[in-house]
């Protein structure tokens, strides 16, 4: 049997909904999917900040999400190697080349800044796309819907201002 090389947004969306149900259920993890707490947990640990008030608050969620993210890395690597066959070392995404520049150094520097802002912002808000939007909006949580609304508007505004030749 030949597996399709890509999942469209409909099968992809349905599969993601099934995974959310399983994760929330008592047979799964009895908690939502989340990612950014895990990254903050790693940062706090590597920089020796485990005695802080914040680390104590996030040890439970953070440690769970670290294990989750290790699974994510394995799933992504497996799929890119064997199903979509897209595994490749690369630095500049095609769309960056088209709408920003052709410099690997610039892309690496902006990625660092972008990644920094993503996690700092997610921790201020208390969640990211996974925790606030995917899991939050699924629960009709007002916090997740506010976050999603703000994030979509600012995402599109930044896209307008940061990139060129649109």
């Amino acid at each position, binding site marked *: 049997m030949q597996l399709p090389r890509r999942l469209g947004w409909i099968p992809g969306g349905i599969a993601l909904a099934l995974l959310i149900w399983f994760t929330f259920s008592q047979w799964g993890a009895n908690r939502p999917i989340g990612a950014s707490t895990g990254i903050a947990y790693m940062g706090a640990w590597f920089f020796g900040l485990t005695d802080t008030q914040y680390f104590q608050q996030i040890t439970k969620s953070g440690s769970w999400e670290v294990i989750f993210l290790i*699974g994510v890395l394995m799933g992504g690597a497996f799929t890119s190697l064997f199903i979509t066959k897209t595994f490749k070392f690369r630095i500049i995404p095609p769309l960056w080349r088209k709408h920003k520049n052709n410099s690997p150094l610039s892309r690496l520097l902006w990625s660092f800044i972008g990644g920094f802002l993503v996690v700092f912002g997610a921790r201020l808000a208390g969640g990211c796309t996974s*925790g606030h939007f995917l899991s939050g909006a699924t629960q009709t949580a007002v916090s997740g819907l506010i976050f999603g609304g*703000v994030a979509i508007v600012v995402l599109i505004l930044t896209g307008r201002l940061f990139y060129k030749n649109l």
Partner: protein
Amino acid sequence: MNFNLIDFFSTTIDLVQKQDHGSIPLILTIGFLFGLIIQWSRVDTFDKIAGFAMLKGFKVPKMLFLSIGIASIGLFFMIKMGWAHYHIKPIMLGGLILGGIIFAIGMAILGLCPGTGPVAVSEGNIDVLTGLIGGIIAGALFTYLYPDLKEIMGPDYGKLTLTQLFGEHADWFIFLYGLAMVAIAFLLPNREIEEEVGEV
């Protein structure tokens, strides 16, 4: 600084085993399936996520809204049956708005977020790896500054869901809510970014 990875993993695994949120193999499986779905749909790429910020392709929001629509209706009834619970984050208004703005600026530039980023790293994107390092440093800085940042993250309006607001009409509301999310998914333009041959 503490880069003792053996210590890191043994402590982390120990912390997870003390919780009632699934065994290590189960959590790894949930993560594996998440990575599989995201990578297989190819929504873990700069082109798909920053492409949405540039309004060039809509696969990411279509997939997100569809899964929220389906999952919200099912989860509501799973909770009614006692099979699951809500886990609601509080409305910390200052943090949500300021954090949402900073997060989205970063997401448009990096082209990924904390859940999809690791998938992009796993398929070989070196730029996203530097983004992940930036994120880890941001997490450390946030932890360090938290006592001061706490002040601007409030006021806390508590944990509120829309189904709560609709009380006894919640059953009807959740159907309308779920259908509206699915409708948004279908109404968003079908435009998608063609993947360039050189990239894959």
